[in-house]
């Protein structure tokens, strides 16, 4: 086993990007993503990473530059957060349509207003429908591992789509914790050089980003949707290869002590580890039949895997860390309810919103959540969503 190194999660991500030997990085600093690109600019300046580091005047420009470098056939990386992702939004849609395999870290942060630099999932939910693959990491090791795997997934010719690796701002990005790094040779063997399927090249001219007249637009969108949905199989393939080579296993839907559980909690991101502590208390000290499901893959939504993961449970408490104002549920809960609609014996689904704008979700909060969904399920309480832990 490799030696564990104590390092900030942001720097571990930069290390993965360096080891992936990216050709181009274009980024604009925004809290709490800043340390990642700051460190990458140092690595480029120190000639430890042979890449073009392109500073820009806004995130809109950052993603536009990334589109250009990726179209020219460069392995391309960027990172952002919150308002920065929102400012990129227009260009985000274009990247998957052009089939450009950009990898982006999103250090998840709340959106204004009120102004908040702290963590929740509002930013990625705003970019939900842009056509990017979206993965969630729960700790620094996963952030490092998923960053490396993302290049391989994105650049697979069956995929050729951009990926966002979501890490919770501050609660992951600014934490020093142990990481096991791969050797450069191991990374090189796992992640071969990027071979673009099509690239901008003056010697072999192609056109990218053409007008889609009504006779072709729907077909283009259907193709894009198919390729995104089909990427789940490639993601699983890459996860499996990574596990075989390096012994660290990843699944699109992860579970923790969920076998035979009557109540399941469902989370995304770094709160999942805190939730595991709650599950241990519920199971071992209180003898309650409670387990945990965690979504690693948010887009494409792993419908079949989710159905399998919750089969047999009676109640499901879905924790959202973003509000879809006036919606039928939290963004994750809506997807889960839709995925389970019409399934025989589907569990009662409670939609809970917590942890907004950096509010802690504690072990006790998760224990209370399990109790709350059990109580609501008893009376089959019809509800859209409940915002918990709010002072009134």
């Amino acid at each position, binding site marked *: 086993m490799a030696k564990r190194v104590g390092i*900030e999660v942001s720097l571990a991500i930069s290390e993965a990007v360096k080891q992936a030997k990216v050709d181009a990085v274009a980024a604009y600093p925004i809290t709490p993503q800043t340390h990642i690109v700051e460190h990458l600019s140092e690595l480029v300046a120190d000639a430890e990473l042979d890449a073009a580091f392109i500073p820009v005047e806004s995130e809109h420009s950052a993603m536009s530059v990334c589109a250009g470098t990726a179209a020219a056939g460069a392995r391309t990386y960027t990172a952002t957060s919150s308002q920065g992702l929102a400012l990129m939004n227009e260009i985000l849609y274009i990247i998957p349509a052009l089939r450009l395999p950009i990898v982006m870290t999103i250090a998840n942060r709340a959106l204004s207003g009120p102004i908040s630099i702290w963590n929740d999932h509002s930013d990625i939910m705003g970019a939900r429908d842009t056509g990017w693959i979206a993965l969630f990491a729960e700790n620094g090791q996963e952030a490092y591992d998923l960053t490396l795997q993302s290049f391989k997934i994105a650049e697979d010719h069956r995929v050729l789509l951009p990926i966002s690796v979501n890490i919770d701002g501050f*609660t992951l990005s600014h934490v020093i*914790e*142990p990481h096991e790094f791969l050797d450069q040779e191991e990374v090189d063997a796992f992640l071969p050089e990027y071979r673009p399927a099509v690239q901008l090249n003056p010697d072999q001219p192609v056109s990218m980003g053409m007008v889609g007249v009504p006779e072709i637009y729907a077909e283009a969108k259907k193709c894009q949707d198919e390729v995104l949905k089909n990427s789940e199989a490639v993601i699983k393939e890459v996860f499996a290869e990574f596990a075989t080579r390096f012994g660290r296993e990843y699944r699109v839907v992860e579970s923790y002590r969920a076998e035979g559980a009557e109540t399941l909690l469902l989370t995304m991101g*770094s709160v999942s580890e*805190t939730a*595991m502590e709650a599950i241990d208390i519920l199971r071992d000290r209180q003898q309650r039949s409670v387990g945990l499901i965690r979504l690693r893959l948010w887009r494409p939504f792993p419908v079949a895997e989710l159905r399998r993961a919750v089969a047999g449970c009676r109640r499901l408490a879905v924790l959202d860390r973003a509000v879809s104002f006036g919606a039928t549920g939290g963004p994750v809960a809506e997807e889960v309810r839709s995925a389970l609609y019409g399934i025989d014996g589907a569990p009662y689904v409670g939609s809970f919103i917590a942890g907004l704008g*950096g509010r802690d*979700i504690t*072990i006790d909060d998760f224990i209370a959540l399990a109790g709350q969904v059990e109580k609501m399920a008893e009376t089959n309480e019809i509800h859209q969503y409940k915002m918990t832990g709010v002072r009134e």
Partner: protein
Amino acid sequence: MIEVRVHGRGGQGGVTSAEMLAIAAINEGKFAQAFPSFGPERRGAPVIAFARVSEQKIRNRTKVYNPDIVMVLDPSVLAIVNVVEGLKENGMLVINSAKSIAELRREYSFKTDLARVDATHIAQEELGLPITNTTMLGAAVKARALVAVDSLVGPLEHRFGRIAAKNIRALKRAYRETEIDLI
């Protein structure tokens, strides 16, 4: 698992204290976390940082609410922050102060194990600056054996480069001079 809360003022390096502790623990083969109180940097304002050290993988990612050890880098925060809030019953409070243990107990009614060192004086002499973060690390590991004092040397060398030697001197001097008063 041992949980640590560091009180200081923005710019005094409280976050670095927590970080050095975590890296030293990880280098010893333990598991550890260190993180700031996730706010905008506010030079001079009271700030906190956290660390956790454990023999097992650490999964709890909330703030530290019930620390085993509280480190106070700047004596002036004692008057404005309740530094013992949430401190475990058998917890240890490590204070930078020129005052004696008896005076501190009298003035603030501290009922916990207490360690004190005049870190400002040591830092002023060893570093030429009243920055007490590395000095207070020496006091903390003397008060509670979180990591071996020598395990902090490597991380300090890595972080402080050419001014590392001074900081290591301050660390070790504080380790020698810290007074501990158990209840």
